[in-house]
């Protein structure tokens, strides 16, 4: 192993996913020299999404070909402070990405904005329900940025991603049959919505009959050929059903690899280094200024890359891990409730309801896209929480991204036999005639749910693993059960043969063995006060002002929507303020505490 120091650059970006690619592109446009470091290998749609070899459920979704290999580094998990956390040895509950493009290469493509109330949830709850409505131990916070401020950046991200969707209002005028709860937009979606697959069509009809307000889910899957502002060309989605866990062979699903990196690579000032695992951010003797990063290359050499600006844009928990390993900000302590790095770690509260249709109905679940049909009647604060006594909500939707037979067979109708002839019969029946309605809900932040460094286990680089302390809490369990119970009318209208309501059980702790979602959030959140947030409203570290930390780590609590649309908008927002303010200033804080 050798040690080596490279010539300095203006900016180093850690991570080559959505956040990193957006930041690198913006900084190159601003004239900076940028090195982007990616722990994984080179990835491309042409190679990793090639037809037909990529159409392989075993390699893609079962052996996790494109995901992070936990053998290198993982996390430990426990439910409570008084437990010993144990390593997350096999990927299951959540699936972090790795390689150029990050999880952006193999995400599904559901592309939401955020609800205005979600971005200022603490203020909103106090205004509508009073301060006493917030349960003891819940760290309810505002983002420090409003929907109105972010709107141009949501719009920008949709144009870069080639997002298909249906607006409700543009410039205050009703323009279409979009989500009536959605906030106003400055422009329509760049592409019309994807067509409803059969199950989404059934849900739309039934939800209407039940008195709800169904709309086409916004998806970064091109419904028509599209060229984005960077000149990247997308082909139209053919509903192949290989969205989640795969690279899109149709070039229809937005990815950093298709939508940004080709344009980024044309900047002479841009360098991408893959197989470069960043070990820590280097700080000067004051601890208030980053001088660059040190990473390990594929040969095991430790390379120092000096830089004037450090952008952490790895996956949510890797950003928090790097901050803890580097001593950027004060680590959160749940006992004294001090420190901010690791604080407000949240997840997404998703449960799945299985609807079995009559044997005459073939649900063709293998057809899929990131589109679908949703209702927002019970998302966010779109309904009166006063008599309910919980905070948060959940959209309900049919988002059929293609069910393949291994997953289909493992997910045969819940509660039935698990093997033998009776199971086989039920697995085939479920696959052919059922579909799933998801309740994908918010997850609030709690004082004793957080991230820190594990005292026992280390990764292959000899560094302590990140430790997650996480469990479902009463507020979120009751929210989930309330929202799922609202499906009753929909299920009746569907004329279902049978239904299994997927609801959170108050006596079942968070279980790492079952896939839920990779929408992990928080841990280094943005906000107005350095006491309760690691980052200011521009995603700048309060403590080290030449470090910006971009990703879902910045969400003070988890919302009902998928995080990527907000991550992308926040990246453009942060980059805009780096370009227009930070680069023109003295390199100090953009907000005075």
């Amino acid at each position: 192993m050798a040690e080596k120091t490279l010539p300095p650059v203006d900016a180093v970006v850690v991570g080559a996913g959505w956040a990193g690619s957006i930041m690198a592109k913006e900084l190159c446009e601003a004239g900076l020299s940028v090195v982007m470091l990616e722990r994984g290998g080179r990835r491309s749609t042409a190679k990793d999404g090639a037809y037909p070899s990529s159409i392989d459920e075993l390699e893609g979704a079962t052996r996790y070909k494109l995901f992070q290999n936990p053998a290198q580094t993982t996390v430990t998990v426990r439910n409570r402070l008084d437990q010993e956390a144990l390593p997350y040895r096999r990927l299951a509950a959540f699936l972090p990405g790795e390689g150029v493009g990050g999880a952006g290469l193999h995400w599904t493509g559901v592309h939401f904005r955020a609800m205005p109330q979600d971005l200022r949830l603490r203020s909103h709850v106090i205004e509508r329900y009073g301060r006493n409505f917030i349960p003891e131990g819940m760290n309810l916070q505002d983002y420090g940025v409003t929907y109105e401020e972010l709107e141009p950046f949501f719009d920008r991200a949709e144009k870069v991603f080639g997002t298909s969707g249906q607006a409700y209002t543009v410039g205050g005028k009703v323009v279409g049959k979009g989500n009536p709860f959605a906030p106003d937009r400055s422009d329509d979606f760049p592409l019309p919505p994807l067509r409803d697959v059969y199950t989404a069509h059934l849900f739309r009809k039934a939800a209407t009959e039940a008195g709800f307000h169904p709309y086409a889910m916004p998806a970064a899957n091109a419904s028509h050929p599209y060229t984005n502002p960077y000149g990247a060309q997308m082909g139209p989605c053919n509903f192949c059903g290989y969205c989640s866990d795969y690279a899109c062979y149709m070039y229809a699903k937005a990815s950093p690899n298709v939508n940004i990196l080709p344009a980024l690579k044309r900047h002479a000032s841009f360098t991408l280094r893959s197989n470069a695992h960043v070990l820590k951010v280097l700080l000067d003797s004051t601890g208030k200024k980053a001088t660059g990063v040190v990473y390990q290359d594929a040969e095991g050499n430790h390379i120092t890359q000096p830089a004037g600006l450090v952008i952490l844009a790895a996956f949510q928990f890797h950003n928090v891990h790097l901050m803890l390993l580097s001593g950027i900000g004060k680590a959160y302590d749940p006992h004294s409730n001090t420190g901010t790095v690791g604080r407000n770690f949240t997840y997404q509260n998703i449960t799945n309801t299985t609807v079995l249709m009559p044997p005459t109905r073939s649900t063709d679940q293998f057809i899929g896209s990131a589109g679908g049909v949703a209702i927002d009647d019970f998302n966010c604060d779109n309904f009166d929480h006063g008599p309910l006594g919980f905070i948060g909500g959940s959209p309900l939707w049919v988002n059929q991204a293609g069910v393949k037979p291994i997953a289909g067979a493992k997910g045969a109708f819940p509660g039935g036999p698990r093997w033998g002839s009776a199971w086989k019969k039920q697995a085939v029946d479920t696959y052919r005639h059922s579909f799933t309605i998801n309740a994908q809900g918010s997850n609030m932040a709690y004082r004793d749910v957080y991230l820190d460094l594990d005292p026992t286990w280390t990764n292959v680089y000899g560094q302590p693993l990140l430790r997650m302390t996480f469990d479902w809490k009463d507020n979120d369990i009751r929210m989930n059960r309330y929202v799922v119970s609202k499906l009753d009318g929909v299920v009746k209208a569907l004329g279902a043969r049978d239904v299994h309501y997927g609801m959170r059980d108050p006596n079942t702790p968070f279980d790492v063995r079952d896939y839920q979602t990779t929408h992990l959030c928080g841990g280094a959140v943005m906000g107005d006060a350095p006491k309760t947030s690691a980052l200011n409203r521009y995603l700048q570290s309060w403590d080290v002002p030449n470090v910006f930390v971009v990703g879902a780590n910045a969400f003070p609590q988890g919302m009902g929507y998928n995080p990527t649309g907000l991550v992308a908008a926040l990246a453009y927002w942060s980059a805009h303020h780096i370009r227009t303010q930070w680069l023109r200033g003295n390199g100090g804080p953009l907000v005075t505490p």
Partner: protein
Amino acid sequence: MQGIGAGAAALSWGTLHPHSARAEQASATAQNQAPQTPRPPTRFFTAAELAFLTAACERLFPEDDMGPGATALGVPNFIDGQMNTPWGRGEKWFMAAPHRSGPANLGYQLPYSPQQIYRKGITAVQAWVMQNHHAAFENLPAATQDAILSALEHNVTQFDDLPASAFFEQLRSDTIEGAFSDPIHLGNRHMGGWKMMGFPGARADYMDWVDRYETPYPYGPVSINGETA
């Protein structure tokens, strides 16, 4: 650049009928490759281990009026093939010490790779079965085999630091994967698993079928190597 890819993709759905496009493309891929060399009957498992595996998989996934069972689908060959992959060697799991036990919901904590789970599990089950039934698992009547598998599933015994249920769950999961993965992985022979499920395999193009709501998708499966059924 990206335009080339998008163009190629557009050509493949736009100018040909989708199902034929997919099948032709898959066939072309198959023809461009040398015929697959038949693998030896086993690489990892001994003949005795394979006898257990074949019998156990067939009970988990029996031949019946729904369609072929695990043996006909080649599931034991699939599992055998998987043993000599990075996954089979445990290279895709975090295997670092210390190994401590904890609540089930915190996940797998054993120090064993899939190879070791099978090697330890089969030896232990056969010894246990021999003690209780005085015969090898594969020579017992189906009803007895089912009772034994059910006992493993419900974790009635522990074999040398290997919970019976951990072995059972590995076997069940791999049996399903062998029955329903692409035949390129040696299971799902003649796409029998897919035909039973009604899954079109690697067709992966439903442009013309998205909104034909009352018409079930009409075509049988194709495989990565271009096999049709």
